[in-house]
């Protein structure tokens, strides 16, 4: 069965998942982040009773409403795509992966769907207190729905709290708390939500800057900016902090991913972080080409510090992780594949023995399987080099994310400084930059998705289930067709969304 794999189908299925996930991720961060910002605006209105704040709150709510529906619409595919395109994965991990999805449905979505209407239509219909409560609940609900999908994703990156059942060939949940509160999941959640908050702050800043440049709605724009830039500054600093935590976590449980997004082929002590460098796309892990083309700058020791919290520590490179490194006691994919093949063979032998009702033999094979089961996924690889994810894409995405991410707090600081000085409206250069910050935010955020998921390849579940085994038995043509169907539909919807949004911004807030 493995021999007949249609690799074209796997790649098209990956492309389709990437397409739907990345489109979804254009809209969702705005929803997650702006609900908090709106809740702050709304709170200020309720506290001060100032009608200008109400007008402002309603304006951002209106834009949020345009964005919300398309975020929800693009989300439903993600859930069902596991079944349609990754059915073997769904079967093997339904226990663990399905549970968070079901919880998400029960709690968060209903919370969102109920309070959503009150938030939008509650003006002068419900009490001020309950209305404000609903606005906060929409923020809580949206962000709670992100918790569970991120818990599920973190589990794919670092599968904890599970055990493989050789009788059913499934991964079964052993400890729910371990899955839900794994440090990887907590980092994912904080990183995703804080980066969403900073993106939403950029959304507010982009539009408000444009108003200031045009000399329109000046009071509203300035007020919106002060709150958004404050929240954005906090969020951007926190995002750097938990991004660093994520990198540390990745170094511990997915060293290959870390090596790939830093273009680190040879392991090093006191390893440097690439500050400037053009990655060599042609280089393979087994050849002698230079990893970088031309000029490049490394900041010494920074990668070691990031990976192991210590400047002098050793960071394994892709070569060490593929071919092994005895000196530093690192198992390579070569050695792991040997053990993985034994795990696969023992599993087959166990099943045979069980079928033949030979209990003694079954016990022997099961014991042998248990010895090697942590390498199970490697048993399905054909070549050790397959364990390397796409290096150039991971590298570029990681560096786009990091460079933009380090720039963001400065932009927020600039906005706060000139707001405090009271001459923000005169700083045309900053406002000009401000109008494109939302696009920069989207770029950084999408790059982050690529780092996390392309860097995870070739695994669906790290070390246990390769992507090629996770798929559904479909033809490449089928998935190719739906890929283009989704592409066309989403692009048409995106165009409509942008057009409506631009019009709403042009109209501006309603006059009281």
């Amino acid at each position: 069965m493995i021999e007949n794999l249609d690799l074209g189908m796997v790649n098209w299925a990956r492309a389709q998942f990437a397409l739907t996930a990345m489109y979804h991720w254009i809209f969702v961060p705005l929803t997650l982040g702006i609900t908090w910002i709106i809740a702050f605006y709304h709170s200020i209105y309720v506290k001060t009773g100032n009608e200008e704040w109400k007008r402002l709150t309603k304006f951002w709510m209106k834009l949020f409403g345009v964005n919300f529906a398309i975020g929800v619409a693009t989300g439903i595919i993600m859930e069902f795509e596991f079944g349609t395109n990754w059915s073997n994965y769904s079967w093997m991990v339904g226990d663990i992966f399905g549970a968070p999805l079901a919880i998400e449905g029960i709690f968060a979505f209903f919370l969102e769907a109920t309070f959503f209407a009150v938030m939008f239509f509650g003006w002068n219909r419900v009490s001020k207190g309950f209305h404000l409560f609903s606005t906060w609940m929409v923020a809580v609900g949206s962000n709670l729905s992100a918790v569970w999908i991120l818990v599920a994703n973190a589990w794919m990156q670092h599968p904890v709290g599970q055990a493989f059942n050789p009788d059913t060939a499934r991964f079964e949940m052993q400890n729910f708390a371990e899955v839900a509160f794994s440090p990887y999941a907590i980092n994912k959640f904080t990183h995703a939500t804080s980066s969403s908050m900073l993106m939403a702050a950029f959304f507010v800043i982009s539009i408000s800057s444009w108003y200031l440049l045009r000399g329109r709605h000046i009071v509203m724009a300035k007020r919106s900016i002060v709150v958004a830039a404050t929240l954005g500054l906090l969020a951007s600093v926190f995002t750097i902090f938990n991004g660093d935590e994520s990198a540390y976590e990745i170094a511990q449980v997915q060293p290959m991913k870390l090596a790939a997004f830093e273009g680190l082929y040879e392991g090093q002590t006191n390893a440097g972080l690439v500050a400037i460098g053009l990655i060599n796309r042609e280089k393979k892990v087994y050849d002698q080409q230079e990893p970088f083309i031309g000029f490049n700058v490394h900041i010494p020791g920074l990668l070691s510090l990031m990976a192991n919290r210590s400047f002098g520590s050793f960071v394994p490179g892709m070569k060490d992780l593929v071919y092994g490194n005895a000196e530093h006691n690192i198992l390579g994919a070569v050695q792991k594949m040997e053990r993985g093949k034994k795990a696969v063979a023992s599993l087959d032998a166990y099943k045979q023995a069980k079928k033949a009702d030979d209990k003694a033999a079954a016990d022997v094979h099961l014991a042998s399987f248990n010895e090697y089961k942590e390498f199970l996924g490697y048993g399905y690889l054909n070549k050790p080099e397959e364990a390397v994810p796409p290096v150039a894409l991971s590298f570029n995405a990681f560096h786009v994310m990091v460079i933009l991410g380090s720039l963001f707090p400065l932009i927020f600081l600039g906005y706060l400084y000139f707001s405090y000085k009271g001459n923000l409206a005169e700083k045309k250069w900053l406002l000009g930059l401000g109008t494109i910050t939302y696009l920069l935010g989207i770029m950084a955020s999408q790059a982050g998705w690529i780092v996390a998921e392309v860097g995870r390849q070739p695994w669906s579940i790290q070390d246990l289930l390769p992507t090629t085994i996770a798929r559904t038995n479909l033809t490449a043509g089928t998935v190719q067709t739906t890929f283009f169907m989704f592409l066309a539909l989403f692009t048409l919807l995106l165009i409509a969304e942008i057009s409506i949004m631009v019009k709403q911004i042009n109209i501006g807030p309603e006059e009281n």
Partner: protein
Amino acid sequence: MIEQLDYKTLQHLWWLICSVVGALFLFLTFVQGGQSLLWQVAKTPTEKDLIINSLGRKWEMTFTTLVLFGGALFASFPKFYSTSFGGAYWVWILILFTFIVQAVSYEFRKKPWNIYGSLVYEGLLFINGVVGVLLIGAAVGTFYTGSNFQLDASNFVTWTQSPAGPGGGAQPLGVLHLQHRHGPLSGVQLPHPGRHVSDQQP
């Protein structure tokens, strides 16, 4: 208390939960009913707006119930989830399509600069109302009709005559017909987790 329930009882309980959620979803598809009848019931633009606005307060509930239904099936009956969704590929993909266009149509229909005009969005609501519900009927119908598929030792499902075939996408009714003969679910014996369904010959 939960720990003392055996696997079989748990599966029955989950089956009950899924059934209730499924029934709730069907009840909530009055939203889709309204969408299908829109062009008949509403004679003037004002009437149209009134109907769409009243349905527009409820579509999220129908939608989230569908999401919950999917999540519950994924968690409790992964074999069903993976076999049905992977096998009846086109049916489920088209269901998803009709629900994606529904969500945005309510929001975009009356907004200025919505590019395609409100008539298009009303058309999309009609498609969701008629085609979406019909296809869900096709998927649910396979509970009763069954299908031919094989399962190998590594749990790869192979369909002997797949509704994912080329004709399925173009003709929902063709899918219905195909599924009538070869629906995707009969091999899955949901309430009997102990039994293996491998080696089923067509």
